[in-house]
């Protein structure tokens, strides 16, 4: 066999291997979706769709009457996530702007790894901080009886989504062509004006994508909210009420649910709702990011 032929075979084998890897990721995603769908659909043999999405009471193990109303948990999840974004987006963009434009390179060398380490803190540890540190502090600050509420969850999720928002926003800011910066400064704009009126708008789609990816992280987070938000099933009336998110509910109930019962299928239906929500957010982020990259070329 000639060297060339052997190299060709080698080449196509490697190509096939990488193709298989790429396909595998797609297959896993499709497989998860189909499994979720297949296990979720039987739930609606006994639960009315209108009850599932419209009622607020969730009590599948009730000795009186099993109820499957998801609305409180959907609202709770959205509330905790929205709170987290309100806190994390301004701080995240601020830090990203500081890192890309203001910070001395020595400070940046220290700060960037610190932000990356923040991403590596296990969620149980963050949840624990919520119980012993943020919870009591929030209770004192707002004069509530306890700190196990939606706000506590929001603060913790904000901390957890910060690294995503910061690092992607900073990349977007750095990707703004130098010429924009120089032109703005040459026209007599101050550094602040350049940052706010030129660089931030130019990097906006990247920053939006960063925030959406951070939001996807926040919606799907389980352990932290399970530990810090009190898990009450009632409909929340504000950020200072204890809430139970969809993720926390699955984690609490899946361990002991008898298999192949309505309750079991209903938990997968919640999983499907979550999957669709995070998928939509990630897809939107991807579309925004792609549009931004196309414009750059």
């Amino acid at each position: 066999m000639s060297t060339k032929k052997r190299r060709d075979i080698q080449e196509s084998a490697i190509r096939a291997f990488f193709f298989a890897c790429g396909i595998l990721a797609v297959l896993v995603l499709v497989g998860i979706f189909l499994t979720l769908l297949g296990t979720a659909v039987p739930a609606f043999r006994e639960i009315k769709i209108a009850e599932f999405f419209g009622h607020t009471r969730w009590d599948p193990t009730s000795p009186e009457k099993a109820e499957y109303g998801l609305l409180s948990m959907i609202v709770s999840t959205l509330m905790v996530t929205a709170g987290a974004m309100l806190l994390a987006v301004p701080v995240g963009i601020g830090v990203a702007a500081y890192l890309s434009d203001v910070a001395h390179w020595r400070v940046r060398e220290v700060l960037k790894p610190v932000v990356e380490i923040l991403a590596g803190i296990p969620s149980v540890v963050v949840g624990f901080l919520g119980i012993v540190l943020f919870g009591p502090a929030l209770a004192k600050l707002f004069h509530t009886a306890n700190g196990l509420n939606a706000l506590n969850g929001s603060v913790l999720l904000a901390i957890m989504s910060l690294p995503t928002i910061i690092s992607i926003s900073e990349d977007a800011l750095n990707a703004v062509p130098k010429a924009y910066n120089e032109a703005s400064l040459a026209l007599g704009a101050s550094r602040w004006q350049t940052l706010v009126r030129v660089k931030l708008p130019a990097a906006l789609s990247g920053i939006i994508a960063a925030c959406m990816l951070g939001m996807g992280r926040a919606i799907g987070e389980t352990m932290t909210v399970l530990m810090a938000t009190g898990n009450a099933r009632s409909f929340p009336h504000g950020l200072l009420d204890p809430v139970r998110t969809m993720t926390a509910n699955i984690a609490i109930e899946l361990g002991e649910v008898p298999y192949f019962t309505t309750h079991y299928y209903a938990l997968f239906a919640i999983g499907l709702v979550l999957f669709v929500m995070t998928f939509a957010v990630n897809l939107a982020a991807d579309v925004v990011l792609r549009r931004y990259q196309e414009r750059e070329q």
Partner: protein
Amino acid sequence: MKKIPMIALAIVTLLGGLLPAAPARKMIQVKGSDTMVNLVQILAEEYMGKNPGTAIAVLGGGSGTGITGLINQTCDIADHSREWKPKEIDQAWEKGVTPRFFVVAVDGLSIVVNEKNPVDQLTMAQVGALYRGEIKNWKTLGEFQEPVSLYGRQSNSGTYVFMQEFVLGNKNYSTDMKEMNGNAQIIEGILQDEGAVGYVGVGYLYDENHRIRKGLKVLKISKEPNGAGYLPTDGASVESGAYPISRPLYMATNGKPKGDVAQFLGWIVGPEGQSIVEREGFFTIGEGKYKAANDKNFK
């Protein structure tokens, strides 16, 4: 060429991690009740100290989790603080699992409030009304102006189910109840929250010096309005049934316990194990009906 030492290092670490696991010892897997997990952990440690040949792994997760584990045969012993539901026994039989139950300790399920709360005693009916969400403010029960803040467990907990059956009269819990991961988290919540009320196993009331934790108040419970109230910390009234919310704590095995499992269980219900049960704040099984039932199940 720099990479080669790194790869070698990685391989060595990997092998190092795998090798000690190779000569696997038979390990007894215990899973279930969070109320019992600390107690069983201590029992297992003391037992392993005396019997170095046996390895025991203890996990919590709630009674429901332990029972499901025994049914699915993912554990050797299930800890549970409530009785099995008929449905669960049916499921076990379907899978060829024949559970046998051993009472290893007795718990006085304790109703606790923050020390700032002036209430000292409640009736069973009042505790039920609190948890059903019918009493919203402590002033209904006395002078204390503070909204009631309910702390409880999650539905996979045996204590949750036990309370629902025996105290709430099989009615729904208030959806305002904060559902905590474990007894210890309930205690942490109550210590910070002046309007709090919670339920925990009696063993969780004590600090490391075996005194009742500072900031907690354990309530006397009476069966009837105006009746005499009793404390769950008083062994005599728990044993006699004068304290109304006492319950046996169980360990279940699949079929008649054999080998190491039988020895471990025998040791727990024997004098050594029971003295540890008492030291940890729970109550012993005594010489009465529980002992008789255990003896029958060992045979």
